[in-house]
């Protein structure tokens, strides 16, 4: 019997015995940073159950989403020292979210913005990188739908739109004689720009904490590790001339966003 996510005693049978998995589940899958090859020593395990049935155990709480039905029960379970967060989605809720990506107009959205929430992105990323325990065919079909809907491009467009906002803020702050805040805004603009670049390269985790590791792994041609780390750590920031650093960073953001070919 194979232990799940390298956690001894955590097996599909054990999950069933604990009442965490309904008898008629459409799919059960693991996801999150560990599955995406990004975890750390204290990472928890994210388990997703897709079923029309509710869990047999009492939920620890519920998420509210603009879907039908509107609630997603969650159960927090401890297997020894490992925390397992389990979310219970219906097949219909998953389909609604996948359709939201497919319906997103990347035409105008590439410049005007992309209307999809952080919660949506978080769930869909976890769906995209999931490893099935039950219902591998169902999961593979959902992952194909996401791929067909150009999910990485949507993430890139979304991150670049965020970056644009911070670029505008940085320039406004410089004009308003607030260089310290402009530096922070420029740093945020750069972060979102790199996130967009990495999403385009297939690194879909939306969490900023993995940015460095994702960049080291993806090695995009548009940004070397040295250039990235120099800006991320603000190595060249001269406290006497912060506006020069802000301009340099904003130029780099502009250069990167102009190199990514949407819908090539």
């Amino acid at each position: 019997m194979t232990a799940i996510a390298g956690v001894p005693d955590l097996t599909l049978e054990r999950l069933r015995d604990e009442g965490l998995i309904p008898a008629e589940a459409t799919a059960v899958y693991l996801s999150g940073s560990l599955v995406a090859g990004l975890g750390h020593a204290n990472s928890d395990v994210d388990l997703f159950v897709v079923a029309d049935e509710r869990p047999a155990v009492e939920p620890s709480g519920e998420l509210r989403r603009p879907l039908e039905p509107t609630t997603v029960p969650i159960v927090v379970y401890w297997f020894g020292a490992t925390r397992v967060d389990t979310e219970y989605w219906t097949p219909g809720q998953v389909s609604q979210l996948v359709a939201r990506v497919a319906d997103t107009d990347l035409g105008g959205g590439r410049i005007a913005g992309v209307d999809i929430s952080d919660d949506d992105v978080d769930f869909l990323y976890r769906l995209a990188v999931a490893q099935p325990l039950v219902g591998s065919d169902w999961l593979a079909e959902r992952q194909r739908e996401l791929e067909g809907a150009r999910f990485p491009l949507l993430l890139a467009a979304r991150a670049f739109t965020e970056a644009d906002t911070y670029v505008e803020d940085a320039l406004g702050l410089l004009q308003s004689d607030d260089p310290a805040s402009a530096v922070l805004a420029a740093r945020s603009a750069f972060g979102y720009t790199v996130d967009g670049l990495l999403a385009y390269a297939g690194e879909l985790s939306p969490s900023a904490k993995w940015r460095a590791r994702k960049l080291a792994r993806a090695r995009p041609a548009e940004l070397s590790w040295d250039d990235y780390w120099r800006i991320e750590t603000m190595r060249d920031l001269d406290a006497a001339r912060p506006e020069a650093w802000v301009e340099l960073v904003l130029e780099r953001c502009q250069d990167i966003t102009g190199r990514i070919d949407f819908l090539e």
Partner: protein
Amino acid sequence: MSSVEAPKRAVGVRVRKIHGELYLASGADAWRLSDVGASIWELADGSRSVEEITAAITDEYSVDAGSALADTREFVDELIDKQLMVWRPRG
């Protein structure tokens, strides 16, 4: 404009590439650049004069040098007017 100054892409201009074509956006306005326009945009990093940009364009697109200089100047002036480029002193 004399060659002691060089055109430079203005920071804050939003840039996207779609189907290989370059789009610039500022405020609510957006412009699609031609292939030659995109090359001029790429070359306008503040280190090259209009004449040097024109020379590079002439090499790349095999166009007449005389008309290319006038066309490049016109294009740069248009982007300067729209505040998509700025003039920078050459170091």
